């Protein structure tokens, strides 16, 4: 190890220091002092970490700490994404956490510590570090999910999330153990080299399957999605904004690493498996969402469906699939954080308006928030010129390119189905309010939340109108995981050029 290795984990270091600082200040401040400035400390720390990730691009790409973490376009892409989500979530919490809460300081610290785990998860190339990173992020999110202690649902959500999550993590760990048994290493590049040579291929296959179970649980793909609606319903909305995007983005990064980098040799095994999971997630998620009356449960099922859309990208060839999946993760994060931000503002930290019908007349009560809600819903539907459209577009074109036309058609029909429940919410909020709803308080939008919403809108629009930059970044990331072979055509360009003479 040499001292410059520290630069490889610079964002994580900055985030850790921020979290520790928040905790220490929180502990030393007199109990009756406001904790809100700690949120700003967290936001500033996250912003610095975000810049540090971008700065990492100037480092030579490669691994550090004896081949346990690496910096590459891929890690930077996900670091920036995760730090961005954390930043928005912090800004959102700043204005919406109840001021008298005694645990505000802890809250900010936990969010930042969670970010450490998620960031580390994307840059780890050693399975044990992966496991540690996953635990860091999971434990923070378990606690955050239970932050509404006054209601029964909060602790229930936390407990359910914790128990099922630990169970899934155990699967992952078991998979790691088996792969160590089969290849004698836990380093991803070594595994990629040794797995095809392993004597007991059954062991490798079982190991991959177990690791997939663990990861698919984290991304809430069907059939490992049972926890999602309960947790989303019970957790405070700003936490759900975070929970439904950042850990998932990190887990997807891990998934991409595992399937494309560690086990490309087993493509014929995991590819059909993920095909099935993708179809199941989309269909189960959308069908269940159609029947929901609770907004957060509906969005929980919608996030399951979106996990399915993202997994569809993995039906494509490696570099295209990774780029499409990364792009989708970004687009999904932008719009989903945005919609949860709106929901937080409308129904408050304690979910005063949990049902879809409670949103009736939002466009009249709060025109700006109502328009934003409809905007994010439109993006979730996948209407062009929003991020959601290009996310789906790249994902399904990757599937079509990889020959999975059936998957693309199922996916697109599903997105038609999904339009029904997104629209239901949009339509309800566009209806005239009934008279008795004048009692509902008008949500106030502060500077921090305004900035958070602005970032989400800007990101959603930018990804829908000028996706080039992000797509380039995603492609660069894809190439670091999976250098394009000489024989393969460049990304997303035609496989066969049609010859004018071909008709003879």
């Amino acid at each position, binding site marked *: 190890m040499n001292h410059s290795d520290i630069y490889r984990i610079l964002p994580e270091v900055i985030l850790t220091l921020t979290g520790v600082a928040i905790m220490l200040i929180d502990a030393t401040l007199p109990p009756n002092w406001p904790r809100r400035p700690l949120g700003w400390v967290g936001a500033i720390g996250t912003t610095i970490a975000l810049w540090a990730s971008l700065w990492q691009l100037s480092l030579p790409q490669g691994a550090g700490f004896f081949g346990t973490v690496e910096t590459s376009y891929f890690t930077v892409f996900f670091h920036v994404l995760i730090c961005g989500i954390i930043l928005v979530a912090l800004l959102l919490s700043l204005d919406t956490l109840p001021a008298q809460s005694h645990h505000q300081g802890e809250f900010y610290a936990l969010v930042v510590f969670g970010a450490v785990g998620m960031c580390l998860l994307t840059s780890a190339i050693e399975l044990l570090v992966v496991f540690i990173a996953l635990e860091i992020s999971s434990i923070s999110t378990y606690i955050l999910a239970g932050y509404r202690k006054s209601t029964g649902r909060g602790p229930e959500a936390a407990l359910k999330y914790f128990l099922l999550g630990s169970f899934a993590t155990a699967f992952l760990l078991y998979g790691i153990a088996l792969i160590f048994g089969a290849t004698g290493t836990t380093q991803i590049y070594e595994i990629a080299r040794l797995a095809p040579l392993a004597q007991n291929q059954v062991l490798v296959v079982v190991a991959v399957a177990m690791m997939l179970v663990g990861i698919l649980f984290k991304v809430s793909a069907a059939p490992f999605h049972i926890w999602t609606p309960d947790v989303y319903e019970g957790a405070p909305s700003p936490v759900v904004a975070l929970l439904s995007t950042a850990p998932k983005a990190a887990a997807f990064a891990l998934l991409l690493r595992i399937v494309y980098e560690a086990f490309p040799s087993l493509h014929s095994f995991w590819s059909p498996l993920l095909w099935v999971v993708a179809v199941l997630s989309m269909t189960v998620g959308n069908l269940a969402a159609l029947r929901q009356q609770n907004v957060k449960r509906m969005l929980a099922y919608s996030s399951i469906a979106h996990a399915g859309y993202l997994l569809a990208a993995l039906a494509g060839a490696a570099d295209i699939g990774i780029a499409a999946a990364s792009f989708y993760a970004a687009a999904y994060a932008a719009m989903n954080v945005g919609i949860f931000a709106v929901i937080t503002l409308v129904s408050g930290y304690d979910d005063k308006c949990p049902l879809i019908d409670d949103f009736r007349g939002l466009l009249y009560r709060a025109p700006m928030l109502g328009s934003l809600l409809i905007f994010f819903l439109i993006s979730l539907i996948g209407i062009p010129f929003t991020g959601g459209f290009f996310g789906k577009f790249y994902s399904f*074109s990757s599937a079509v390119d990889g020959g999975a036309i059936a998957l*693309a058609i199922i996916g697109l029909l599903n997105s*038609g189905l999904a339009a029904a429940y997104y*629209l239901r919410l949009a*339509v309800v909020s566009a*209806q005239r309010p009934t008279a008795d709803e004048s009692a509902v308080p008008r949500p106030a939008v502060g500077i921090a939340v305004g900035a958070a919403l602005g970032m989400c809108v800007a990101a959603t629009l930018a990804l829908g109108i000028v996706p080039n930059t992000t797509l380039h970044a995603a492609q660069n990331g894809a190439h670091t995981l999976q250098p394009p072979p000489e024989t393969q055509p460049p990304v997303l360009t035609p496989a066969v050029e*049609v010859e004018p003479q071909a008709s003879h």
Partner: protein
Amino acid sequence: MNVYDPIILTLILLVPLAGAALVAFLPDRAKLPNWIALFTSLVTFAFTLHLPAHFISGQPGFQFEVNRPWIENPAIAYHVGVDSLSLWLVVLTGLLAPVGVLASWNVIQSRRKVFYSLFLVQQTAMFGVFISLDLMLYYGFWELSLAPMAVLIAMYGRKNGPRAALKFFLFTFIPSAPLLVAILWLYSRTGSFDFTTLQVLLAHGSFPSGAIFWVSLAFLFAFAVKVPVFPLHGWLGDTFAEAPVAMAMVVAGKMGLYSMLRFHVGLFPAQARYVAPVMIALGVIGILYGAGLALVQRDFWRLLAFGALSHFSLVILAIYGLTVTGWNGAVYQILSLGVVEGAIFVLLGALESRYGTSEIAAYGGMAARLPHTATYFVIATLTMIGLPLLGNFIGEFIILSTTFTEVSRGWAIAAAVSVILSASYMLWLVQRLFYGPESALAERPAPDLRFGELAALTPLAVLMLAMGVAPNLWLNSIQSGVHPLEVKDFAHEHPTVLILPSIVLNHSTRGARR
């Protein structure tokens, strides 16, 4: 070449958007949103008039073309242009925008900002559909046109808006899923979203014929729902009954029909020929079925919806007759229908806003109270039923005569029954609304057409007459418009690749103009 030529289409796209932003950000005070919307749509209309003024008739290919790369990978370009197929449709869209604003002037009382800004976004989307030459760009505008429409139907529906909005959205959104897959499939095989490139590649290249057939079917399906073609018309009645007038008059017909002509027949002529018999049969069924149902409707919006189904089906018949003359007639008929239906929508909307009902039976004897309304309505009705010297006659005549001589006598005769049927339901509607014994409604004092409504209707009435008397003003440029569809232009080396009816190649397009 005019200095505005390269930017005019971009301006047409951007001006309504800018207007929408302006409406959204200025306060909703008095009639400010209305005035901004009116001004914007008039400016846009003036811009669209630039197109025919500087259009070089007879020149093959696209004019006012802009082709700039937008997204590198996948290679989506900002490629727009008009040929004479789309030329007049753009102008028609431009014309109907101020008409729509004027028709909504007093009807839309609440949330004017939302209404007018979405209305203007919808304008941009429709212009985009007509001028996009890149399939992805086209798809983008196609989808974009759905969202404002659905929201407005939900917000301003008369009785059951939200349900109608959902129905409309799902009916039109779900078929666009296969459309997108088909576009992506084409891209994965050819590496291009560009219309002209694809046209050449599809004409020359060898593709698996089964796959290409399914691809063409996906295109056709999406367009057929949007037109709508029988039996996919389930959304039409509810949408017409619920949508605000300014929206309802643009929702059906021209976008779907144009897309069929440009992107189904234009890209997949061989496959279009294969499905043509089915489409002709569906067209004729639609003509008769729509007209029959229109006869028995109690609500005038629904009557109009089924009448529209019948009229659009006639255009389907013309498109899938696959004759150049028929296509001329089809385009002409789309234009003429756009004008007439616009006028009828404005008039019925005026009636409904005055008396608060769309139940036909409630009306009667209105002519004495509302002489101007009655006059305009009769003009529009006569045009609608295809009276000679009025707009629809030309289109119907071309279509029916071409079908008779070149496609099939039987189908032509069956389709011609529609002329009688449409006369029956439209004239009967006039009789029930405006003549006969005075109903209770007629007692109620209500002003005749307002200045704004007159300002919207008069140009439409003049156009109906002009399109009937001097069709050559339009037909001349339309006739070069079907050029890009024509075999020899894009398959110059192997004309037989496209198996169009050989008669098309020999047939002189002049015959039908007599």
